[in-house]
C-alpha cells in the first residue's frame, strides 16, 4: 500500500513541482507513446510508398502511365477507400458491416427501376438509390442496437437479403445504365479520375469528422468504453445507428460509381469482396478490430497499398490466386504488429 502511495505521490505532486528526474522518465515515456501512436499511419505510409516504388521501377513502362494510374487509384483503390471510411467509423465504435458489398450491388437497381419503370427523374433516382443505402444502414442499426443482435450476424443476414433481392428483381440479368442518368454518372464515376477524386474528398471530410468533431469524439468513446460513454451521457445507440447509416450511403455510392464506370448494373456486383478489402485496408491502416481507435488516413493508405498489390501483380502476370496469399500475410503481419505494439505500450504504462 505504501508503495503505491509513494509511486502515485510522485506523479501527482504540488503545483509547480519542477522538472525532477521522474518527469524526464515521463517525458521519454510520452515520446515513446507518441511514436507508437503515430507509427500506425507511418508504417502503412512507408509500405505504400515502397510498393509503388517497387512496381514503378520494376515495371516502369506499363506501371507508370496515365491509364494505369487511373486503373490503380480510381478503379481499384477508390471503391475500397470509400467503403473503408464507413467500416473504420463502425469498427471504432465497436461494430462491423458485412452487408456493405450487397448494398453496393442493390443500390443501382433502385436507380434503374425508379428511373426506367416509374419515370423518376435521373437526379432524384440517384438520390433515392443513395437513400436506400441509408435505409439499410438504419435497419442494420435497428437490429443491432435496438434488438441487440451482434452486428456480425445482423449484417450477414441483411447482406443475404439484399443479394437475394437484387437477383430476384433483376431476374439475375444485368441491366443497362438508364440513358437519362449518364450525365450525372460522368461526375460520379465514369470520368477517369472521378471515383478517386470522390474518395479523396470523402477521406478529407471524414478525417475531420473523426478527429475534430463531437461525432468523432463520441464514436471513439462508444468503442473505447461503452459503459463509460453511457455514464457520461453519450447516446451510444445513436452513434452506432449513425455510423451504420454512413456506411450504407457510402456503399450505395460506390455501387452507383462502379455501375457507371463499368457501364452495366450487375446483380452479382460487389458481394463480400469489397467489404473484405475495406476491412483489410482499415486493419492494416491501424484500426483496431476491438474498437476505440482507428484512422481514416490509415485506411486510405491501406486501400492504396492493396490496390497497388492487385494492380502490380496483374501487370507482372502473377496468378491472381497467389495475390490472396500476399493479402492474407499482410493482414496477419498487420494484426500481429498491432497486438504486439499494444503489449509494448501496456508494458510502458505499467513501468
Amino acid at each position: 500500500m505504501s508503495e503505491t502511495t509513494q509511486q502515485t505521490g510522485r506523479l501527482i505532486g504540488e503545483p509547480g513541482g519542477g522538472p525532477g528526474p521522474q518527469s524526464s522518465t515521463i517525458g521519454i515515456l510520452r515520446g515513446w507513446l507518441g511514436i507508437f501512436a503515430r507509427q500506425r499511419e507511418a508504417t502503412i505510409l512507408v509500405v505504400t510508398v515502397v510498393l509503388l516504388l517497387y512496381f514503378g521501377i520494376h515495371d516502369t513502362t506499363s506501371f507508370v502511365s496515365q491509364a494505369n494510374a487511373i486503373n490503380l487509384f480510381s478503379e481499384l483503390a477508390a471503391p475500397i477507400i470509400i467503403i473503408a471510411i464507413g467500416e473504420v467509423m463502425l469498427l471504432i465504435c465497436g461494430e462491423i458491416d458485412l452487408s456493405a458489398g450487397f448494398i453496393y450491388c442493390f443500390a443501382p437497381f433502385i436507380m434503374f427501376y425508379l428511373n426506367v419503370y416509374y419515370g423518376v427523374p435521373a437526379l432524384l433516382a440517384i438520390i433515392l438509390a443513395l437513400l436506400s443505402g441509408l435505409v439499410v444502414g438504419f435497419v442494420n442499426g435497428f437490429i443491432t442496437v435496438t434488438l441487440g443482435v451482434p452486428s456480425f450476424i445482423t449484417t450477414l443476414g441483411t447482406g443475404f437479403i439484399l443479394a437475394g433481392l437484387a437477383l430476384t428483381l433483376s431476374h439475375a440479368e444485368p441491366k443497362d445504365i438508364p440513358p437519362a442518368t449518364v450525365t450525372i454518372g460522368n461526375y460520379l464515376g465514369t470520368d477517369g479520375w472521378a471515383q478517386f477524386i470522390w474518395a479523396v474528398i470523402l477521406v478529407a471530410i471524414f478525417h475531420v469528422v473523426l478527429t475534430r468533431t463531437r461525432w468523432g469524439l463520441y464514436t471513439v468513446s462508444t468503442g473505447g468504453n461503452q459503459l463509460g460513454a453511457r455514464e457520461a451521457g453519450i447516446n451510444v445507440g445513436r452513434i452506432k445507428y449513425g455510423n451504420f447509416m454512413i456506411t450504407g450511403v457510402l456503399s450505395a455510392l460506390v455501387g452507383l460509381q462502379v455501375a457507371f464506370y463499368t457501364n452495366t448494373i450487375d446483380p452479382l456486383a460487389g458481394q463480400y469482396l469489397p467489404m473484405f478489402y475495406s476491412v483489410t485496408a482499415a486493419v492494416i491502416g491501424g484500426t483496431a478490430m476491438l474498437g476505440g481507435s482507428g484512422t481514416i488516413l490509415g485506411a486510405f493508405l491501406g486501400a492504396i497499398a492493396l490496390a497497388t498489390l492487385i494492380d502490380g501483380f496483374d501487370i507482372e502476370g502473377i496468378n491472381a490466386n497467389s495475390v490472396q496469399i500476399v493479402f492474407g500475410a499482410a493482414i496477419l503481419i498487420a494484426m500481429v504488429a498491432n497486438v504486439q505494439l499494444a503489449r509494448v505500450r501496456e508494458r510502458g504504462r505499467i513501468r
Partner: protein
Amino acid sequence: MTAQSQEPGMTEPGGDVLRAEHIAKRFGAVTALVDVNLRLARGEVLGLLGDNGAGKSTLIKIICGFQQPDSGRLVVNGQEVVLKSVDQARALGIDVVYQDLALINQLTVYHNMFLKRERIRWPLLNNRSMRDAARRYLDEMGINIPSVEVPVASLSGGQRQAIAVARSVYSNAKILLLDEPLAAMGAKEAAIILDLVRDLKQRGDVSVIMIAHNYGQVLEICDRVNLLQHGQITLDKPAKDTSVQELNDIVVAEYRRAMEQRQRSA
C-alpha cells in the same frame, strides 16, 4: 431554480436542495434499494456509508439520472423531478463521479475533461480552448500530470481518479455526487481531493454526497453521515455526534449477525 423552503420536514435554514423519498430499485431477483429516504441541505457535505452491495452506487446512479427508480420520488430545489437521462440531471446542476470513473482511455486528458461539455467553434471542436482550460484548471487544483494531451490510459490510477473528480467539479455542478472518489488514491492525492471538497464547502452553494470507506476521512470532511444497510438508511447523524468507533461498531455488529446467520443455516 429558486429553492423555496416551504416544504415540510425542513430543518436546515438553507433549505434542502435534494430529497429522495421512498426510493426502491430491484434488478431482477436482487433488491438493491427497499425504501430510501435521504435529504441534502444547501452547502452540506453528506457522507454515505454502507457495506459493499448495500446499494450506495445504485442510489447515486438514480440521483444522477443514469438509472430510474422503480418507485419513489426525487425532489430537487423543492420541485419533484423525473430524471430520464444524465443530461437531464446535469441541466439541474447534478453531476457525478462514478466509481468506475467513466473515463475513455483512448481520449486525451482534456477531451475527457470536456466530454459531453465540449467547447465548439462550429462545426469543429475548439481543441485549443479546451486544452488550455484543462491545463490551467488542473494546475490550479495542484493535480500534476505529464500533459493534458496524453491519453488517460497512460496515467496512474490515482491520476485518473483526480481527472474524473476535477471534471465534475469543473462543471460548476450545484449537487456533486462522488462515488468513492478516494478509492485508488494515495494519501497525497486524497489530500488534494479532500481540500477540493473543503473549498466547495466554503463556497456554500455546492452540496456534496460522498461515498467512502475510510471513516476517518469521512468524518473529517462531512457535516452529516448516513448509513445505508440492506437498502435502507439506518443511521442519520451529524458528523460531530458520531465517531469512527461508533461506525465501526455498527459494521462489526452487522458482520457478526451475518456470521451467526450462516452458522444457524449451516
